[in-house]
């Protein structure tokens, strides 16, 4: 990184620190009632206390687990279904319009149906998160398969490759950028739905924890939880784009 860029970065951190300072000032002067707005010092103290003596770590792991299971299930099912639909022209013309029709459905509307089916359980959360997270990946896979360079399919035909070989050797690699950006989008959806399910079903996780903190007017704990949720969102998105760069390196280096 060149020095000028580093300077800007440092200045940018200073600006962010300035905002935190402003927040502290507002809290210290009690411009907003401390019941609603704890200072950053109190939120930080609550964060440290939660991790050293409390069960904040367990709650964080709980939320991460809900997110990860649902997202993994959605990835597997979404890519498999997408490959099945995308690799056949007939399937595409029969199924793809229904998928496009379902896409703008606010996925959280499925929650009451899931509660009626599974009750307020972990299974309900898994179903809802997987259902919500599947759409970006499913549609990206279908679209990625449809957008494969047609000449590659001709080559596969002249080589007498089986359908499975075509999927794994041609279509999946060619559709991988679409699929991975779908997976990144799904991560955000999975986090949001994990929080909603925890709030509704009282499952062990940060979502329920922030709700309980709010009900008890423990605002420092509440802000600590929100900061942690932001951190989860940030870290998972960063991790995903690192994976993306690694997996797709062959595309930029080749050709």
């Amino acid at each position, binding site marked *: 990184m060149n020095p000028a860029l580093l300077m*800007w*970065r440092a*200045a*940018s*951190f200073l*600006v*962010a620190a300035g*905002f935190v300072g402003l927040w502290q000032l507002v809290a210290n002067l009690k411009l907003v009632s401390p*019941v*609603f707005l704890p200072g950053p010092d109190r939120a930080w103290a609550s964060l440290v206390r939660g991790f050293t003596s409390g069960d904040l770590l367990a709650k964080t792991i709980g939320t991460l687990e809900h997110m990860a299971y649902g997202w993994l299930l959605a990835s597997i099912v979404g890519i498999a279904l997408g490959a099945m639909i995308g690799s056949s022209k007939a399937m595409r*013309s*029969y*199924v793809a*319009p*229904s998928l496009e*029709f*379902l896409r*703008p*459905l*606010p*996925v*959280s*509307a*499925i*929650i*009451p*149906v899931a*509660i*009626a*089916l599974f009750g307020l359980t972990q299974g309900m959360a898994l179903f809802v998160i997987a259902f919500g997270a599947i759409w970006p990946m499913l549609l*990206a896979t279908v*679209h990625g398969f449809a957008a494969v360079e047609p000449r590659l399919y001709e080559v596969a035909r002249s080589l007498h490759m089986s359908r499975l070989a075509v999927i794994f050797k041609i279509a999946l690699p060619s559709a991988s950028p*679409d699929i991975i950006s779908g997976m990144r989008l799904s991560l*955000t959806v999975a*986090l*949001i739905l994990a*929080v*909603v399910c925890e*709030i*509704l079903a009282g499952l062990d996780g*940060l*979502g329920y924890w*922030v*709700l309980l*903190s*709010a009900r008890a*007017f423990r*605002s420092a704990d*509440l*802000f600590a*939880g*929100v900061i942690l*949720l*932001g*951190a989860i*969102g*940030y870290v998972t*998105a960063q991790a995903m784009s690192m994976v993306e760069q690694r997996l797709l390196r062959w595309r930029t280096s080749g050709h």
Partner: protein
Amino acid sequence: MSGERWKAAALPVALLVALEIGARASGIQSDALAPPSAVAVALAEAFADGSIIGATRDTLASAFAGLLLGGAVGLALGIALGIFQPFDRLMEVTIEALRPIPSIALLPIALIALGFGYRMEIVIVAFACVWPILILSRAAVRSIEPRLIEVSRALKLSPGDRVRKIIVPAALPRIFLAFRLAAGIALIVAVTVEIAINPIGLGASIMTAQQALRPDLMLAYLVWIGLIGYALNAGLVVAQKHLFGPAALAGEAR
């Protein structure tokens, strides 16, 4: 073309018929499923007694108010960040720190600060809508043909005029796209807030139907929410084509 249409309709129609026959033949009482005909009846009843219309109004009002609020903030910030490069660089860490906070995590904060009702929902929707509009309008402003900016300089336009007469018109197609995406997000967030906690609108109605063990009414609300989501998106796509021509849709990121 009509052949394609038939193929598109085949799957949903087959599913509906199978559901209807299955539900009638087995005759099981379920808390989660109902025959499609019963769902249609429940939907018609909800329209007849006006409950679904009121709930739709509440949800759409909160979603649009949040969209306007968040959109105005996001657009102002996005244009400012797009024009002044140093400002953009200075705000980078702050924005990257706030953006990944899932909007729904603000729910408990909004709840204790504002209580149940419209205001709390609007604030959460606005927070969710700021980011896509900020990011996309910033990119739209940056991608404006540099010669246009030079022209505005040569004409010695004031900064206000430059934004009004050059930058906003040039970036408008992509800004509209940002609003279209944000409108979808606004509806999703509004329904989610209602399902999670806020006792107004479609989300609260569908939860009430579930708790009252009325699967027909619950599924009727689900279908209706889906239709609204579809109509909102389709309407905005048509508006986008109409206002900016098909070229506006071509370069869109999926």
